[in-house]
């Protein structure tokens, strides 16, 4: 939009990746004089807000300087040799696919840091908390910005340790087991993924994603592609998560602190789906086409399974946990994303990328709201909250109730809000999958997926009825309504949900050319 020198753009992108990491190291040091603040805790939390804020500004600058007329071109790219022995290059760059994810990550992390500044989760020192948050941010941003398979793997692994500690130290009940489950599942998947990445790198002779995408699988034999897609796909599917590899997610979400859940759902899951689009689709298209119907089948099973699990949790007397419910709804939403990718059509993949962003915004907001609810009432148990008639949030804290209802209807895909377009496009893509994929199968998947949207609407409306509505007894004290800092943290998410819903072209205009090119073989 605005013309920024290419070398400045390169610097901005490098800063986005490295900045949080340096910030994490700085967070561990004692605060310099003049920046001591009221207390060491306050100083370090403020440091977190400053660093994530700077990264957010850099991301916005990057988005502004991005040449929106050529979103399919890798921009701000840096390419330095790092480990010649392994042919690993520090190759960074953004295109229309990664830019929205970078901005989303920077935004969500900043909002989390801001929220924690006012509402630090209970646990050990904030120093470690801020450092881990920043390492997490660095890892996620890096995985969206790097264009080298081994660096992608490195970034993919880099988020594990901080997330593990965020859950295990600042989490709620059952956090130790949940953190273990999270890290073991992901590690198991990622080691297999490493083998697949190595296979591709060794057989094709390069780890560079751009070169591999341009090659479009021509230098890989069919059997190599099949093995590589299977190995890499398992690693990514655990992270996404795809049914039946999802079972770490509900536990991790239930136990994680609010900001942990927000980041887990908002950005960490996206690394999995991003990998599908960035690595598997262009680099091993033939192998991916072999697995696409199975992926789609697992995806729609995930949609139905997630919705049914949510319905069961939302039922009266089921002792359903709201955080767990949202986690299961994530499984369903990510099912739509995977279905879109599995169609291998521009429509479907665009829908998947759109749904990715929308899920990050909406689910991030939902986790924030549920976290706030837990702070006020002390529980996320639906039955304990709703008692007999309903929690009557509209009566006790009207703004909080209103926001919750907004996020719920956005999540169920109400037209005009962000959740609608992605799922619609994913289903639309399944209506006419890529040539070579079985159309009847995908039509069936589409029908099942569409049924899933009904189920999604059902459970979310049940949740709204049980949490927001009900009879508010006069003698019960009112809950504190939305605070200023909460407004500050949530407003951007609400606004973007509306903007993305009303003006989808802003996002699709970015992703579509890049996706077209990726599917056509990355030629430029």
């Amino acid at each position, binding site marked *: 939009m605005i013309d920024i020198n290419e070398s400045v753009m390169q610097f901005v992108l490098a800063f986005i990746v490295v900045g949080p990491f340096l910030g994490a190291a700085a967070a561990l040091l004692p605060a310099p004089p003049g920046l001591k603040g009221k207390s060491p805790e306050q100083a370090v939390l403020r440091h977190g807000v400053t660093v994530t804020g700077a990264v957010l500004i850099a991301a916005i600058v990057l988005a502004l300087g991005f040449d929106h007329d050529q979103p399919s071109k890798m921009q701000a790219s840096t390419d330095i040799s790092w480990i010649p022995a392994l042919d690993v290059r520090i190759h960074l760059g953004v295109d229309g696919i990664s830019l929205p994810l970078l901005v989303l990550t920077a935004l969500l992390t900043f909002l989390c840091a801001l929220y924690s500044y006012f509402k630090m989760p209970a646990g050990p020192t904030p120093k470690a908390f801020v450092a881990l948050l920043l390492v997490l941010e660095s890892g996620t941003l890096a995985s969206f910005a790097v264009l080298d398979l081994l660096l992608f793997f490195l970034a993919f692994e880099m988020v594990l340790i901080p997330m593990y500690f965020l859950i295990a130290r600042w989490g709620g009940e059952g956090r130790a087991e949940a953190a273990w489950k999270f890290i073991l599942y992901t*590690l198991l998947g990622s080691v297999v993924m490493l083998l697949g990445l190595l296979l591709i790198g060794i057989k094709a002779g390069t780890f560079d994603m751009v070169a591999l995408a341009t090659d479009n699988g021509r230098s890989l034999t069919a059997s190599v592609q099949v093995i590589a897609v299977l190995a890499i796909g398992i690693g990514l599917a655990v992270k996404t998560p795809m049914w039946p590899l999802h079972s770490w997610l509900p536990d991790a979400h239930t136990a994680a602190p609010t900001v942990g859940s927000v980041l887990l759902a908002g950005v960490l899951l996206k690394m999995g789906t991003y990998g599908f689009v960035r690595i598997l689709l262009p680099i091993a298209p033939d192998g991916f086409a072999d697995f696409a119907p199975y992926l789609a089948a697992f995806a729609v099973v995930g949609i139905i399974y997630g919705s049914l699990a949510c319905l069961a949790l939302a039922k009266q007397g089921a002792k359903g946990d709201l955080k767990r419910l949202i986690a299961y709804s994530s499984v369903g939403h990510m099912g739509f994303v995977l279905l879109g990718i599995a169609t291998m059509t521009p429509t479907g993949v665009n829908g998947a990328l759109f749904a990715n962003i929308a899920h990050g915004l909406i689910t991030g907001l939902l986790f924030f709201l549920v976290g706030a609810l837990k702070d006020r009432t002390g529980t996320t148990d639906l039955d304990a909250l709703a008692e007999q008639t309903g929690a009557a949030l509209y009566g006790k804290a009207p703004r909080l109730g209103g926001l919750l209802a907004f996020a719920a209807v956005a999540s169920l895909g109400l037209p005009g809000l962000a959740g609608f377009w992605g799922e619609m496009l994913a289903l639309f893509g399944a209506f006419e999958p890529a040539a070579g994929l079985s159309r009847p199968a995908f039509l069936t998947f589409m029908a099942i997926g569409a049924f899933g949207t009904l189920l999604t609407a059902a459970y979310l409306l049940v949740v709204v009825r049980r949490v927001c509505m009900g009879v508010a007894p006069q003698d019960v004290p009112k809950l504190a309504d939305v605070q200023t800092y909460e407004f500050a943290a949530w407003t951007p998410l609400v606004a973007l949900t509306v903007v993305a819903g009303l003006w989808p072209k802003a996002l699709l205009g970015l992703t579509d050319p890049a996706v077209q090119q990726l599917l056509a073989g990355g030629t430029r």
Partner: protein
Amino acid sequence: MSALAQPLAESVVQSVDWLAIAPPTIAALVGLVVLVADLFVAENKKALLGWTSVAGLAASLLLLLPLLDGDRATFCLTGDAGVCSYTADRFTLVIQFLVLGGALLAALLSVTALKDANKELPEGEFWFLLLSSAAGAALLPASRDLATLIVALEVASLPAFALVGLRYGDRKSSEAALKFFLSSVTATAVSLMGISFVYASTGTLYLTQIADRIQNVDGQLQTLAQTGVVLTLVGFAFKTAAVPFHFWVPDTYVGAPLPVAAYLSVVGKAVGFTGLILVTVIALPSYADVWGPALAALAALTMTVGNVGALRQQATRAYSAVRLLAWSSVGQAGYLLVPIAAAAYSNDGERSIGSTVAYALMYAAVNLGAFAVAALVGRTKPLNRISDYRGLYARNPLSALILAFFLLCLAGLPPGIIGLFAKVTVFSAAVDAGLGWLAVVMAVNVVIALFYYLQWTALLFRAPEGEAVRHLVPAPVTATMALAGVVGIALSGAPQLILRFADTGLF
């Protein structure tokens, strides 16, 4: 000397390139000096011996520098200058750097250990044994004939038995030494027998000549040659603590003084796999179809047994931290074997060997670092249980952070970037050679290892039980941790420093 006698003398008397053999020689000489000096040094100045030895090891490390310019060889056949017993090529230099550096760090740790032992360990003997063993280990990678190889191997391992059993009146220590000694001597006898068979069938001890001649062995001697090859390999497999020759490791490590355990875990391993590389890749490339599958199976078994053994350690058992490190070192030995096995299948075996060397360098630095922190904790908690590490961060933040870094390097997880990439080279050697199944076995093992390393790492940051008491850290231990830490962090930033060995031929 008359003009006639001169050429005769030249053909009989070998000229020796003293600079080339300086690194192991200096270590051995300083060892002798320390042993003699021990008789004359007053009781309260015994610490001097330790620092002399440290300086000696540092000097032999420095003497590697002038050798960097090119390949040198000495003790060559007078008839054929291409066949030498001692070669200082890149492979030799890298391994010598590894063993001498490892010995230096172990020696630094020992300075404190000896001081803490309060005369329970005889100082002069200790340093003599350590330096002799280091000299043997430094000689080994340079030796290019089977006799020198065996002599070097014995010089490296015989003092190690004594080091393990050195503690006065410690039953566990002497039991460990005996176990170690008996099994090692058996292995040596076996490999000597193998070497004699190989000699019988080829008529030479030089590795390069064996490589040529063993291909055209007389039909009748074929069985003899094959038996010889297998027996030789068995002997060297023992030294790497490969399964099923691993059983001595945990008890030996627990019984030995901690710095000695650290020394064995790094230098002992290096000795074993160097010998194995020389015998397999240099001497017996034509038998690749025999030792390739055998080593691949051995690697898979070793890593699985080692990692499962480490996984089964209970945190509250006595010495569980050392036991875990011991078992995990068996597992790591398995990873080290993978590229050697891959060398049998690939066209460019020397490149695969480079992966082993790179991995070993990474492993040496971080494992010695982990042992240094274990030695530090062992000073206040002599039982050295894993549960003793709980809340280390609260007591001593820096050592907890650095131990976490070392453990994550061993596990191969960021921020231990070098550990990750070292594993990647090993993986790629396996995938490159078409050993997909071995890569998968290793992947499973990496996950098992991640489990116990992470569990330990997580424990460091738990809230401590009871009051956190800070202790002064002795300078030598700090120096060891700092050296290992700096190496680990520098390598994480620039992995190319060691990974380049995986890129080029070393011989």
